[in-house]
């Protein structure tokens, strides 16, 4: 029988094997490495279905009580693996751009395909972490591998700028995290979330100091999930980073941030100030993300703001403490964001990544346009797509909690969302273009995109599989 920690070990070994292979086999086509990574991750993904989750949430299973293998974590391990595989498929399509950014020198594609595997291992550890020490270590594994990925095509000044911004602000947020952990440890004498809960239940504990520590941790997590006012880095980094890395950042990094947030909030729920603070952050995030997305003309930047906006909807779920709504929304978000980035990677190599570069795509390449149509409809929240059900569950939780302000703002921002997502649809179908040549799509991408389209519509009509996977 497979036990949960073996999954991450397998992924780490896979990453190292690919790196070593790349170092010694210099002559091969580097894309073979990507196919190998995808195949390896697929094997691990299959293995996750044979891992028996622990019966109780947050129950420790290994690594000195640092690690849990509850249903939530297994689900997100699958989530991380799927994301990484899709990102690797996008990276294969993106390889020519990376290669052309290193003229003359031996191309660095090997690392481009190997580093995401380590990120994946970091994400998988992170969703299982139930101790602040382990949360910190796995978060750093994710972040450091992203430092490499974000500035990978470093000859491009925009990318370099993105890399430096990401490095500096991430380091800052890490400092907040460590400082917050130190405060919490100072008050409670514990780093394990379960024991912190017990310590906080003791009326002799200094709640003010614990709250301060928690606020610092929230600041750090706010950076990860791109919540306002910690979102400053998002648009520039998303726009500057290589497109597949942007997709990875906006899906993987965000999902991990939300899982950690859900876990870390557990001990602090007895402090009412935290919920009020979260309501405020959610409101700011919704308003800023949606309003700032309205005038964007660059699709990558638009998706950056939209990722802030979606963080706002997810925070509504967090405020209402409805873990399943958050998780379902994340799953829907994964599918639709990956699909939109997959189309963007292919189209931007032909024309560019402004919205006007999508003009007439409906005529040029009906398949790509249809995929983008589904992704945008789902992001906007049209029924029969996964995105709609995600919003449905989030709003359901908010109505149940009578969060009237959040609901009013939520409905208005949904209206904004329809505007900026339909702008893309408008470009693809209303406008026309002089370029009429067909855009080539590799068979693998076509299969991956079709699978994503089917999954978006399938989950939008029949959500039960995901709801079952999360049932306690």
């Amino acid at each position, binding site marked *: 029988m497979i036990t949960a920690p073996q999954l991450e070990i397998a992924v780490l070994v896979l990453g190292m094997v690919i790196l070593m292979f790349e170092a010694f086999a210099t002559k091969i086509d580097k894309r073979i490495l990507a196919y190998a990574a995808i195949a390896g991750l697929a094997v691990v993904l299959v293995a996750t279905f044979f891992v028996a989750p622990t019966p109780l949430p947050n129950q420790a299973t290994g690594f000195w009580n640092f690690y849990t293998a509850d249903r939530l974590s297994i689900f997100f391990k699958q989530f991380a693996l799927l994301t990484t595989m899709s990102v690797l498929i996008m990276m294969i399509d993106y390889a020519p751009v990376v290669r052309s950014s290193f003229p003359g020198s031996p191309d660095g594609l090997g690392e481009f395909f190997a580093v995401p595997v380590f990120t994946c291992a970091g994400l998988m550890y992170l969703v299982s972490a139930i101790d602040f020490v382990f949360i910190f270590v796995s978060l750093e594994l994710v972040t450091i591998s992203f430092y490499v990925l974000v500035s990978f095509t470093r000859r491009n000044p925009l990318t370099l700028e993105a890399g430096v911004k990401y490095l500096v602000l991430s380091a800052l947020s890490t400092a907040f995290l460590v400082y917050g952990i130190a405060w919490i440890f100072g008050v409670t004498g514990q780093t394990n979330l379960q024991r912190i809960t017990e310590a906080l239940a003791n009326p002799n504990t200094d709640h003010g100091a614990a709250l301060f520590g928690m606020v610092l941790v929230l600041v750090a997590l706010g950076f990860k999930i791109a919540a306002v006012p910690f979102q400053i880095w998002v648009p520039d980094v998303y726009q500057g980073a290589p497109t597949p890395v942007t997709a990875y950042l906006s899906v993987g990094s965000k999902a991990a941030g939300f899982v950690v947030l859900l876990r870390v909030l557990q001990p602090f729920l007895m402090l009412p100030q935290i919920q009020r603070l979260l309501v405020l952050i959610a409101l700011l995030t919704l308003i800023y993300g949606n309003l700032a997305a309205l005038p964007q003309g660059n699709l990558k930047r638009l998706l950056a703001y939209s990722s802030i906006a979606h963080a706002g909807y997810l925070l509504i779920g967090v405020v209402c403490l409805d873990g399943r709504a958050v998780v379902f929304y994340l799953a829907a978000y994964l599918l639709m964001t990956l699909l939109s980035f997959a189309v963007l990677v292919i189209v931007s190599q032909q024309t560019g990544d402004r919205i006007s570069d999508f003009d007439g795509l*409906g*005529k040029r390449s009906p398949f790509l346009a249809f995929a983008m*149509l589904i992704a945008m*409809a789902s992001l*906007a*929240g*049209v*029924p*029969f797509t996964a995105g*709609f059900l995600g919003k*449905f569950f989030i*709003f*359901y939780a908010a*109505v*149940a909690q009578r969060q009237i302000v959040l*609901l009013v703002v939520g*409905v*208005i921002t*949904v*209206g904004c969302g*329809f*505007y900026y997502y*339909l702008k893309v*649809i*408008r470009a693809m*179908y*209303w406008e026309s273009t002089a370029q009429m040549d067909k855009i080539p799509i590799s068979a693998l991408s076509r299969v991956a995109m079709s699978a994503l389209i089917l999954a978006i519509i399938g989950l939008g*009509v*029949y*959500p*039960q599989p995901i*709801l079952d996977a999360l*049932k306690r």
Partner: protein
Amino acid sequence: MVLFVIFCPIIAAILIMVGAPARKTALAASGLTLAATLFLLASFQPAQRDFQHVTSFSISPEWHLSFTTGLDGLSLVMVLLAAIVTLAAVWFAGKIDKYENAFYACLLFISGGAIGAFASVDLFFFYAFHELALIPTFLLIGIWGSGNRVAAAWKITIYLAIGSFILLLGLILLYQSLPIASRTFDIRALKAAAALGQISPDAQRHVYLLLLIGFGILISLFPFHTWAPEAYASAPAPAAMLHAGILKKFGLYGLLRLAIPLLPEGARHWTNLLVVLLLGNIIYVGLVTIAQKRLDWMLGYSSVMHMGYIFLGIASTSSLGATGAVVLMFAHGLSIALLFALAGELRKRTGTLVFDELGGLAKMMPFAGLAFGLGAFAAIGLPGFANFAGEIMIFFGAFKNGWEIGRFHIFQIATVLALWGVVISTVYMLRSYRKTFMGALNERWNGLVDLRPGLRVPVALLVGALLCYGFFPQSLVRLVAPAFHTYLSANKEP
């Protein structure tokens, strides 16, 4: 059979997108849909009050969510309307210059979504099917529209998106107002729960207000109506026919379906507000309609105005008024579709719909003139057309509500004012008829050709249905009235 009626247009739309010949497939699909609907009509048993032809697939047992379809008298009438208007709209669409396949696919998606909404017994799918129309409408107006199409397309899309999310909040609140064990979106179960008094009066008031705003935006209730005239004026004629003819009835259908049986206390509490707003539709929008200088805008505003009568029927909470509202919904759907179709044909020939540039067209296009005249008479509510039957039932039903000898209450005042609406609609309809078809012929229009014989079929279909149900409104009433008797029987004369 119900599933066939819903999915025939949707499957045809997908086939057309994949590459089937657009017009032939669309015509065949809408013809088949109408035939199947007529079969359902023939095999319907009005005596039985419950939903018939019910099929159900469980989607989420945990949420008590299932894809359940079925028909009762009320939904059957709406499906029949949708099937007739769809066939007429597809027939009128003709040859499309660019993206022909996408055009027909959009039309059929709208139609399938509307039929699905009317035939859903589960509120979740009732809602979701309606939203199928959102993106096709955006594309129809944006790609094939005319005039100020860009602004119109954005306006309608964002209005409808916000309206439907408000509606969604109302539906969620309705769901949550039931005790946890019996929470469901199934209308039949909701009715049973309401009969047991499980929906508290407080919850009813909140839900009703949310539904009124949400549906109100979709129906273009005053003051949420500003998207409608512009969108209908800019939309290509078949899209305007479907939208004004069918989709707008979705919100009214929803109010009839939910407000009357489930939220009687909410309806009572908000009556005065609703009456004031619907008078805004009838009087204010009516006067605005008179001031229009273009035929397409005039028709757009007139369709907003006529919603006021239907609201009056719903607000009257009398069996007679509610039944009249359904009859008028059916009749208005047919008549406005006919008028938009003819306006679209005129635009194709002349390129303009400004009254001052038209005139005397009946000389060149006698058939179109005749058809437009019939449509205008129907819209005014002349006896013999189904509109008359609906309006008179609404007026009687509303007037009787709270009637005391010697004193007028709000409904009596509202009825009197609404009767003036008939005068207003007479003014603008006849005026537009005179300016378009009568008077001196402008030299520019000497070579205009009348509707070709092929296009006379859908005209005959629409006019025939209007006259048929105008002379025999009882055949509609027989279907619809049982749906309300249970809930509104208390509302007899004092």
